[in-house]
């Protein structure tokens, strides 16, 4: 194996990732090559440096703060849910109010129509009860004349 090929294997050798054939070729070359041996030792020193470098621990109270932050967010999820349904509720209220209003309008029109026909019926009854068929003609200015002109105007209507 050439030095250029060995250099590509050094990192994998450090991680024990070489197959049997690669391992054998690598070992044979390293045994006789000072340059590659030096490079291998330097890479292994990097590996050792990492191994001896301390690991950082999370600051005191880190987990508590993260969970507290999440607990603060949880109510907003609930209120968001409720707010969405409040909007639906408001919309339903508006629709209901509109329906009641329309029903009221329609009912009012029906009632008005009934009262008008009732009024006309009453007037007709009054006219018939006060009918003065005995009189063929009425002198102007008389009560009969006033009555006749009143009945005549109602009929025209």
């Amino acid at each position, binding site marked *: 194996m050439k030095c250029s090929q060995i250099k*590509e294997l*050094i*990192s*994998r050798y*450090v*991680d024990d*990732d070489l197959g049997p054939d690669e391992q054998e070729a690598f070992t044979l070359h390293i045994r006789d090559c000072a340059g590659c041996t030096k*490079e291998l030792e*330097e*890479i292994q*020193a*990097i*590996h050792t*440096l*990492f*191994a*001896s*470098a*301390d*690991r*950082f*621990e*999370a*600051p005191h109270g*880190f*987990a508590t*703060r*993260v*969970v507290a*932050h*999440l*607990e603060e967010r*949880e109510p907003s999820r609930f209120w968001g849910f409720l707010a969405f349904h409040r909007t639906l509720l408001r919309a339903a209220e508006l629709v209901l109010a509109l329906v009641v209003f329309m029903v009221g309008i329609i009912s009012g029109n029906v009632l008005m129509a009934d009262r008008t026909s009732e009024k006309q019926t009453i007037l007709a009854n009054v006219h018939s009860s006060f009918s003065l068929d005995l009189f063929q003609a009425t002198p102007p200015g008389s009560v009969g004349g006033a009555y006749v002109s009143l009945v005549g105007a109602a009929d025209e209507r």
Partner: protein
Amino acid sequence: MTPFADDPDLARRCIAGDLSAFGELVRKYQDKIYNLCCYMLQDSDSARDAAQETFLKAYSNVKEFRAESALYSWLYRIAVNTCLDHKKKARPDQLEDESLLTDLASSEPTPERLYQAKELGRTLQAALQKLPEEMRASIILKEMEGLSYEEIAEVLHVSLGTVKSRISRAREELRRLLQGKV
């Protein structure tokens, strides 16, 4: 029983909206995620913010978690992406920031050990920050978190060959940067 054996059950409870289960998840992985963020971002404030953001994002997206993948690799993926997105405040004295080394001091009582750890940490931190972000993420996941090539490929959503190549180039670059200092 491996430390990750109960992760599927934990994931199920988190997906079901169990906040106490998510608290367990945070306590279980807070050190790993924080450590990763420290080495990705260097300063402790940014690392703390990125770590917290990682867990908040995980909570918001827990329903997208697929049981076929490992819970920790899913968390690492969110953490790496959060760090890559994080905008570090550029300060001239950034490399001299000792906030991370203060964390070391809390666990290393002897002065000599503290000094050695400080020096090693400082040297490694400075060199890591000079690597391109994708290479930095790969070598940190390999060397600091002990993930396999396959696990790193899953976390970073890249091929196995890409992972091996990035780690090899990262080591080569660190070798060049740290020549004579290690």
